[in-house]
């Protein structure tokens, strides 16, 4: 019997919805749009942040180490200890940088030997570097062998690029070469894997770490030092790290007579030109920050609006509930009927809103379920409060009020 009553009341609720169609549509639309606005505002933060990331990625920020007065960026004669910043990943700098280009000065007085055990004097020089030079730098082409890529030169494994002519003279028989720096007291040969050839004169280009640590034992200085940032948003982080070792560019007349973290006098400056990056990005960052701060307020406003809308739409039906009660409908049934109506309208609106949201954002859509749930609970609470307010009051009082 009870079940039949409930089914009847549900049919009545649906009929009621259809009878006052404009109002019902308005309520569904309100629920839909409020749900949509909650979803979109949350999604917008994600989307705008992604837009900002895209703008950051368009900027390539190169950091160059120069002399103290920012005159020269090459021929720096830097202590090779500065390489430790990279090799030891001090302050986690490697997380932020890429395209590391460190080169040593040209260094002569070397002897080399292939597996034929014949010692030969190297006519040219040896250079330690962390990158594959382009043709413009040394005016000849460099080629790596198929098994290797540029990262081999940033490795600790001893590897080198030799003149192609040298390989041709050896009949391409050997793929390792031993080098000895004649200024070393120990007179030891260090073995290097040949990872590439070049078309130039008798210079050998070695991976910097092995050149510095094993071959020359840190006696040859750094000629140039530069790198790019992985992402231009890390300018602050990288600048912070570099200040431990280099003079920051904004200090005028900066002659710092103190030791840096490497226990060397501050003698070099870092230059990190950003162009118009700040002018482009800071307004967007500010805008996203504003959105993040405003988002909770807008969420609360949307939820409160939903609550008030549902409260108001139910409150207006006092007379109807009075009639139902006077005809014998129990309080619980009255509550059930009104609640069911609003539940149907709210759920329809919410589902439509979610459907539109996914239609707009598709696979990028991030639905904040808990916010939708809070909205739903508040909306239904509004109905519940309103109906309970009416349902619990004496029928005669409601009738009297209507009179």
């Amino acid at each position, binding site marked *: 019997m009870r079940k039949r009553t409930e089914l009847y009341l549900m049919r009545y609720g649906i009929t009621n919805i259809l*009878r*006052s169609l*404009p*109002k019902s549509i*308005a*309520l569904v*639309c*309100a629920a839909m*749009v*409020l749900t*949509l*606005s909650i979803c*979109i*505002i949350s999604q*917008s933060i994600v989307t*705008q942040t992604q*837009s900002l990331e895209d*703008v950051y990625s*368009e*900027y390539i920020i*190169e950091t*160059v180490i120069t002399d103290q*007065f*920012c005159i*020269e960026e090459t021929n720096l004669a830097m202590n090779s200890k500065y390489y430790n910043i990279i090799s030891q990943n001090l302050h986690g700098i490697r997380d932020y940088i890429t395209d590391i280009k460190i080169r040593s000065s040209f260094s002569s007085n070397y002897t080399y030997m292939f597996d034929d055990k014949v010692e030969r004097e190297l006519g040219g*020089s040896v*250079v330690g570097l962390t990158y594959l030079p382009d043709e413009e*730098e040394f*005016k000849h082409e460099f080629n790596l062998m198929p098994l290797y890529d540029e990262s081999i030169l940033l490795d600790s494994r001893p590897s080198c690029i030799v003149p192609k002519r040298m390989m041709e003279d050896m009949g391409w028989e050997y793929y390792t070469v031993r080098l000895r720096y004649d200024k070393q007291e120990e007179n030891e040969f260090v073995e290097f894997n040949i990872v590439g050839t070049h078309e130039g004169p008798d210079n050998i280009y070695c991976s910097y770490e092995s050149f510095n640590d094993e071959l020359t034992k840190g006696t040859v200085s750094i000629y140039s030092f530069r790198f790019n940032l992985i992402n231009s948003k890390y300018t602050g982080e990288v600048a912070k790290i570099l200040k431990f070792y280099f003079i920051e*560019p904004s200090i*005028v*007349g900066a002659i710092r007579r103190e030791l840096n973290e490497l226990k060397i006098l501050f003698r070099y400056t870092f*230059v990190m*030109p*950003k*162009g*118009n990056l700040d*002018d*482009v990005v*800071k*307004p*967007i960052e*500010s*805008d996203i*920050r*504003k*959105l993040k*701060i*405003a988002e909770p*307020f*807008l969420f609360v*406003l*949307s939820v409160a*609006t939903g609550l*008030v*809308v549902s409260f*108001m*739409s139910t*409150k207006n039906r006092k007379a109807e509930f009075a*009639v139902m009660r006077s005809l014998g409908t129990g309080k619980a049934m009255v509550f059930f009927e009104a609640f069911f109506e609003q539940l149907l309208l709210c759920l329809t609106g919410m589902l439509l809103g979610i459907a539109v949201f996914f239609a707009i954002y598709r696979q990028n859509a991030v639905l904040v379920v808990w916010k939708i749930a809070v909205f739903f609970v508040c909306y239904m609470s509004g109905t519940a409060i309103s109906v309970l307010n009416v349902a619990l009051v004496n029928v005669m009082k409601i009738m009297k009020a209507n009179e």
Partner: protein
Amino acid sequence: MKYSIKKLYRAPIKTAIFILLIALSASALSISMGMWKYSYDSIKYSKDAFTTIGIVRELEFMEQIYTSSGEPKYDYELLGKVKQAAEDSQYTKHTDRRKYLMGYSPDITSFASDGTRERFYPYPYGIITGVCESIGFTRGSNYAAIFKIDKEDLNILPYFVERKDPNISNEYIYVRGLHLTNDLRFPFEVGEKYIVHVYFSGRDNDLKMYSGRLDYSGRYSEIVKYGEFYNLSEEEKKERPEIDRDRVSRAYEDTVHPFQKLTSSAQALLDSGDKRWNELVNNCRITKHSTEILLTDDMYSMYSFNTGDLYIVNGRAISKDEYEQGAKVCVISWNVAVTNDLRVGDKIKLSVYESDFSVFNRHIPIGDRGSSADYITEDIFAPLGYRGQDFITEAEYEIIGEYRGKGALDRGEFLISHNMIIVPSKSLEGDFNTKPIIAETVRSVDGKSQFVKKERTSIPGSFSVVIENGKTEEFEKEMEALGYGGMFYYFDQNYSEIAGKLDGYMKTASFILFISVLAWVCIVAVFLSIYMIDSRKNLATMLSLGAGRVRAFFSEMSGIVLIVIIASTIGLIAGMELYGDVLDKTIAAGFEGMSAPTELFKAMNISKMQSTKAVWLSAIIQAVVLILIAAIIECTQSGQDVFRLMKGLKKSKNAKKN
């Protein structure tokens, strides 16, 4: 009206709910409107941060002075016309025709790190007073002498000599010269004291002393005006065995040499009124304490700044207002700042003069210095410095920013030298750089080498056209139509890649506003649909009791208007408070730690004011719109027949009973 007001406070809860609903929706929409306006201003600021420029390579229009330089790409006569065409283009925002002056201040020392002619000319000029300790023939120039500098007497030394290099002695100088005396003798005598006007060319690392060169007038080609090459006869070679070569250079007259033997001190020579040496010393002193002044209407229209090769490292760039007002502000190079211990906020007073220019040729190495490198050559225009001209005016500039370069500064068509300060064009009145510059070169004419003079009407790199962002293709098409296609090079600071992303950002911000408007519309629809049911009932009652339609209309409207006004006011106040709070937090967080307000900070504050205006404007507009919609509905309802109104009510009552 009284009745409607009474009706409202008879049902206080209902009235309060209506007011709350309208207030909430008004508040939400106002905040959204304010946020959209802020986003719009932010994106606009971001877009305005880009400057798209077109530049012509004037060196493509001129025959360069290097003897092996090729034919220019375009006729020099076209250059003026091309610039005018650019200025007249519909896509041009403005053009920048830069001017070059110099400014003297006894408190400023020009920066020079060596005597490289192209980079630092004319600052390595100096006056030395000293005793000749040795002299002899050399391989490169004709002869060289070593002087011990008399530190007690008059000396004007360039910055890099005064600065003291621990590896180099600044007590001696190695001076090279070209012309012997007319009777083929060394112009200096060992043991004698001289005052010498010398160009400090650099350092001699073997001798561990500074080296210099006797410079007759500042122009290489004019050296031959003062002397000639002379082939020694066999007799002369026997008579003069110390001359170890067949050919020497000798002066026409011994008075042209840029040095003089001193019997007492250099100061005494000057005090005696010697015009020539007073002029030379004065010119040298003033040049040493001069900077170059670049007058511009837009720093970022210059190639170096536009591409980021030069950038502001301290302070800020010159603002648009400052250009327009000709404000006495300047941006100086980091080198000048370091040399003179100048900081942002300091003021520098300059006596401004216009210098003539000389054209040199620069060799630009291709490839690594450590390896054998090839060169390309480029004409460069360097000022000659002070040569006794009148000062134009005195001007005091406030330093607002310091710039530096990714690499070393230099002279060149698209480069800026070390001693440049940048000021707004309008800060100095006058017509400058109108005198043509003569470029002297050697060309083969009828099989003989001859000096040829070429007239240059502008300094290369002094012209840019600022084009509307995103319009370079259209601009180029316009130039092509005029026959100037391919002459311009364009740089847009990556605007073409980033603009799309900024537009996408704005679309999202606009979408939020759209949804907010939609939400407001739906809320208003709900409110009106509920309110109008009651209103219909009241209207029907009033009309059936004999009230006039107009009276009934106004009676109902006064209730709605009151609710809307109260609700909008509450919504506006709440919206302004919330939005103001949001913006304050946003701006505070964004500029945390900044000591001085930047241009961006000021722009954001302006944006804050304008978007706050949008908040209350939108609150007012939505109140007006809501009242209008309600008025239209009420008007329609009050115009209906009473029975129809009643029937509508009865029908709905019947429907409920069923």
